[in-house]
């Protein structure tokens, strides 16, 4: 009896590998309801638009490690803490000495889209559905994406890049409402429109037109938009049903300490499923956090003095069909703002700060210094002058130029701020 991990996503798989490395004597069993595991969920948009083939998605293959048992296609239905046993969907029972819950999130599907008999509706979260969508799109390219958050915006940009007709619908008055200020979101919206994405803000899908089991159109703002494909990217939430009665869930959340420990000293949680309580409640919902948390949960499993996560940030970077974005986060309220915007270009750089500490911001169009600024967010206070220095783009590329120096003409090569 060793360590059992629920979920073989980013957090679960990293936890499993780290477990085997840190505690070689402990056997590890990973259980995941998906038929395939160990893939980059983050690459689903590039897989759907056919920029990437399937073999590029997998980061893990079953190797000969007899102490690592990965059971794909099996769900955990319930946790019996008193007997330290899991109940599985294949009617087996699985005892554990230590348990890591890394079950991620499930896509939120609005009731109107929950029509299993209709073909053409695809929640964006897992490979099985992505594979179906990829094939489906071939003959049904007219696409509507419901949800202008990170996943929806990414998918829209990637589909537009491959010339799919895309309509993106967001309930709020701006794109990326949980990540960007209205001004910054405006830059992203203008760029997507420039790339051919049709945008509806402050709108939602309120009806579907179905014919012969096929989606024909969706109604938005009293207007029918013909489409055969509807992607649902309305966010995701942990599905904690299997923890009902376990006593681990508080007001719908699986809360852990910064050492990723639940209220039960034998049970840890990592990744999208976990809410970290550190004064505030924090849910990073990003791939890098899932990886780091998976490793940390594994390191802490049998440790006498558990380690804590380094300071938490919810940052994200992406390339939206030619527009680079480094998102440092959007604080709730009470912050000052420093902005650098280049009129006539897509460069928009914004920092939010409070008492000399950087608490968020975004770099759009030119993301130079992103790493330094992210690092500064997790450090102490910095001066306004320093922030202003970093808010100015500092890309460098080779430039050739002719300099006129009186009657002499000289060719010069230098490294200066580059374009793009």
């Amino acid at each position, binding site marked *: 009896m060793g360590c059992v991990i629920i979920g073989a996503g980013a957090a679960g798989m990293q936890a499993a590998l780290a477990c085997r490395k840190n505690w070689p004597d402990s056997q590890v069993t990973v259980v995941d309801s998906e038929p395939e595991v160990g893939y*980059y969920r*983050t*690459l689903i948009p*590039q897989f759907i638009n056919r*920029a*990437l083939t399937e073999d*590029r998605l997998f*980061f893990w293959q079953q190797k000969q490690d007899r102490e690592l048992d990965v059971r794909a296609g099996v769900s955990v239905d319930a946790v019996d803490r008193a007997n330290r046993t899991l109940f599985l969907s294949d009617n087996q029972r699985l005892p554990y000495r230590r348990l890591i819950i890394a079950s991620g999130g499930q896509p939120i599907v609005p009731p109107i889209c929950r029509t299993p008999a209709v073909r053409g509706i695809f929640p964006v979260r897992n490979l099985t559905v992505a594979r179906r969508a990829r094939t489906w799109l071939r003959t049904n390219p007219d696409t509507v994406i419901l949800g202008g958050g990170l996943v929806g915006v990414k998918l829209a940009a990637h589909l537009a890049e491959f010339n799919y007709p895309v309509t993106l619908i967001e309930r709020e008055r701006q794109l990326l409402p949980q990540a960007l200020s209205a001004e910054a979101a405006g830059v992203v919206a203008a760029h997507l429109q420039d790339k051919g994405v049709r945008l509806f803000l402050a709108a939602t899908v309120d009806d579907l037109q179905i014919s012969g089991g096929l989606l024909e159109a969706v109604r938005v703002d009293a207007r029918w938009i013909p489409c055969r494909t509807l992607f649902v990217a309305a966010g995701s939430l942990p599905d904690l049903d299997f923890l009902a009665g376990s006593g681990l869930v508080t007001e719908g959340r699986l809360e852990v300490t910064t050492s990723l420990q639940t209220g039960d000293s034998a049970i840890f949680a990592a990744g999208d499923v976990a809410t970290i309580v550190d004064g505030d409640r924090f849910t990073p919902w990003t*791939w*890098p956090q899932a*990886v*780091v948390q998976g*490793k940390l949960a594994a390191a802490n499993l049998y440790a006498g003095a558990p380690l804590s996560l380094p300071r938490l940030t919810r*940052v*994200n*970077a*992406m*390339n939206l069909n*030619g527009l*680079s*974005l*480094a998102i440092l986060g959007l604080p709730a309220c009470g912050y000052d703002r420093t902005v650098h915007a280049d009129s006539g270009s897509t460069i928009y750089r914004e920092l939010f700060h409070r008492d000399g500490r950087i608490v968020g911001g975004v770099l759009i169009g030119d*993301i*130079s*210094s*992103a*790493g*330094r600024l*992210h*690092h500064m967010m997790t450090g102490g206070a910095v001066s306004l002058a320093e922030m202003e220095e970093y808010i100015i783009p500092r*890309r*460098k*590329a*080779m*430039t*050739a130029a002719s300099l006129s120096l009186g009657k002499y003409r000289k060719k010069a*090569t*230098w*490294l200066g701020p*580059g374009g*793009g």
Partner: protein
Amino acid sequence: MKVIAVYPDRCTGCKTCELYCAAERGSNSKSLLKAVREEPSPMPRVRVEGTNELSVALQCRQCRQAPCLDSCLTGALRRDDQSGIVVVQENRCIGCWTCTLFCPYGVIYPWPERKIALKCDRCLYMEIPVCVDVCPTQALELVDLAEYDTVLQAKRASVLETIRRAGDRQGALILE
């Protein structure tokens, strides 16, 4: 493990390292004169930072616990087992810039035109890194960390020796 050591006191901020890095590692032609005319413009993996008074050439430190490795969304970043160097496998990089955002030293650069992240790989497959080779003031040097450790060990030993010789004498110790 061999790393590039930087000597700020010798750096004049001339940016020769940047130019040659861009030409040698970022261009197709590999020649300075032709590289400047290439599209997209070649970009360097080493950057001279600082002011006229104090400048320093910065490149990837090949962190032992590298945040970029944990952040990679595609499996493009990998540590070369033999050298310990963190490399970008360009054929797997999609240019999402997540590693750029996670590098605390700010030394992973986006190259949007080629959709890849750029970082110093110490010119892994060359005899000597190009920046080290061209630096006119030897402000960059290739050092073996193991050798460096030996020097530091000797230093620590001499400090201990000084302390031992001082015995329980009062007052400040002068260390060499």
